[in-house]
């Protein structure tokens, strides 16, 4: 993958976010001199702006051993301690002997911290704080959207560095560099289009360039679209011709994985594919379902990547010209909405009767409503209530 191949090795190679870069360098220099009061650094920014790259490059430049952990994989206190026990100060002799790490300056990069919560993740945040307080390792956290309440301790104790989406010109530098190194002959128009459509997401831009270099045409509707509706995501996924393209579609969709595979299964169920083909696809979807339940029940987030691969493989099995997903809102949603609006109206009627008759709500519902309904049914006029009100009242009572 070009995203990994062209990951910056030094800080100077990190394009964009120069302000954040200089803040980080200054903080690191102070950290080395033990002049800072913060426990570590907390990178905050959207995806593809260079959070991991910045940490990785800094580790290279400052001579740290770089260890990357994904908070989606290690969320619980025990999992975090198990992973990091060999490098933290509290290690037993046994674990030390089996340790693969050399005891030197170590930088631990914990990605996707916004996925960790305090109690619900069985002390994951507490473990991070404890680890950072030991001060023998440099802890770098990263998150897209930290929660001001749930991550209060982290936000308070870590040096916050914000990274912003890159400008199209900065993206263009990255793309030009790759084209130069790979000896690609891609027109300036295409590069310009990719840099503009990537909306500051360098990873998206590099992946798109990779696709173009592999011979795929540049999609007309290319865009980092954060509000793609589920139907579009699923139908685009069905149309994918390539595994990598499908993975990109899933990864860049804001629709949840469970929504996507349920929509896929619905599309297959409503299609006119032959039974054996359907069985083959449903078999894969049921496997995805099993994995998703494991994730939900046991918190095994590390298998999410496999789920995405499996989902991409499933989508490639579906013939794009014969299956189409049409988003249909279930009937019960409508009835819920109708019931809600009806009950709100009914409450309004009761409240107006309560005010006019100077009695409690309970008294009206218990004693008066049956008589009012009787009057309404016999087409008697009830002062203060319109015909619509009476209809609503009757529909609720019957």
């Amino acid at each position: 993958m070009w995203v990994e191949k062209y990951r910056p090795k030094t800080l100077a190679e990190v394009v964009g976010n120069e302000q954040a870069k200089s803040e980080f360098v200054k903080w690191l220099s102070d950290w080395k001199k033990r002049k800072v009061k913060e426990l570590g650094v907390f990178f905050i920014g959207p995806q593809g702006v260079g959070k991991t790259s910045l940490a990785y490059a800094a580790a290279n430049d400052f001579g740290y051993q770089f260890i990357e952990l994904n908070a989606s994989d290690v969320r619980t206190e025990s999992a975090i301690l198990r992973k990091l026990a060999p490098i933290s100060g509290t290690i037993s002799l046994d674990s030390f002997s089996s340790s693969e790490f050399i005891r030197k300056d170590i930088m631990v990069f914990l990605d996707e911290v916004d996925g960790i919560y305090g109690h619900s993740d069985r002390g994951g945040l507490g473990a991070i704080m404890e680890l950072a307080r030991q001060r023998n390792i440099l802890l770098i956290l990263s998150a897209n959207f930290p929660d001001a309440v749930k991550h209060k301790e982290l936000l308070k104790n870590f040096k916050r560095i914000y990274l912003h989406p890159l400008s199209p010109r900065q993206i263009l530098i990255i793309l030009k560099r790759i084209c130069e190194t790979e000896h690609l002959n891609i027109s300036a128009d295409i590069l310009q289009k990719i840099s503009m459509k990537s909306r500051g997401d360098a990873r998206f831009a590099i992946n798109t360039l990779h696709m173009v270099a592999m011979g795929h045409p540049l999609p007309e509707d290319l865009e980092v679209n954060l509000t793609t509706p589920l139907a579009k995501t699923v139908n685009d996924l069905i149309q994918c011709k390539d595994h990598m393209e499908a993975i990109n579609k899933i990864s860049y969709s804001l629709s949840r994985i469970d929504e996507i595979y349920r929509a896929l299964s619905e599309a297959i169920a409503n299609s006119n594919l032959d039974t054996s083909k359907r069985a083959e696809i449903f078999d894969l979807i049921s496997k995805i379902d099993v994995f998703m339940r494991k994730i939900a029940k046991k918190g095994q987030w590390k298998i999410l990547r496999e789920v995405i691969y499996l989902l991409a493989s499933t989508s490639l099995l579906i013939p794009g010209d014969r299956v189409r997903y049409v988003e249909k809102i279930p009937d019960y949603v409508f009835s819920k909405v109708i019931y809600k609006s009806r009950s709100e109206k009914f409450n309004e009627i009761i409240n107006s009767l309560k005010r006019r008759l100077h009695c409690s709500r309970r008294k009206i519902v218990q004693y008066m409503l049956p008589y009012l309904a009787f009057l309404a049914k016999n087409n008697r006029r009830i002062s203060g209530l319109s015909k619509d009100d009476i209809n609503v009242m009757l529909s609720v009572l019957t």
Partner: protein
Amino acid sequence: MRTLNVEPNEKFKLPFIGKGVFPLLMSAGLKYDRKTKAFFIDSGTDLNAVNGILSSRGIKLVIRRTCAICGTPVKCEKCDFLSSCDQKQFFCICKSCLNSEHVFLNYLESQKRSLLSKVMK
């Protein structure tokens, strides 16, 4: 409306803004240096929020963007990419540097110089 052109980390003074406004500015990410009694912006400053707060005082902060390679001012109004840029970066690349032959190498050199000066400080 008085426009105040500022560069990142450049200290600037504001007229008396009142006790109530100061914490609001701090929560919007504007930084204050107690030694020099001056404000400055950094990567965490939400410029839109700051300008929203300062608009009642008739002040607007505008970032003076410069080229990360040559240091010349970059004018966003004339940029071809303006429609797809959220303008949150403090630095950009000027047109002449972007069109130069070895733009990445030039960027690398300028960044090495700039970062080295930060470490030396």
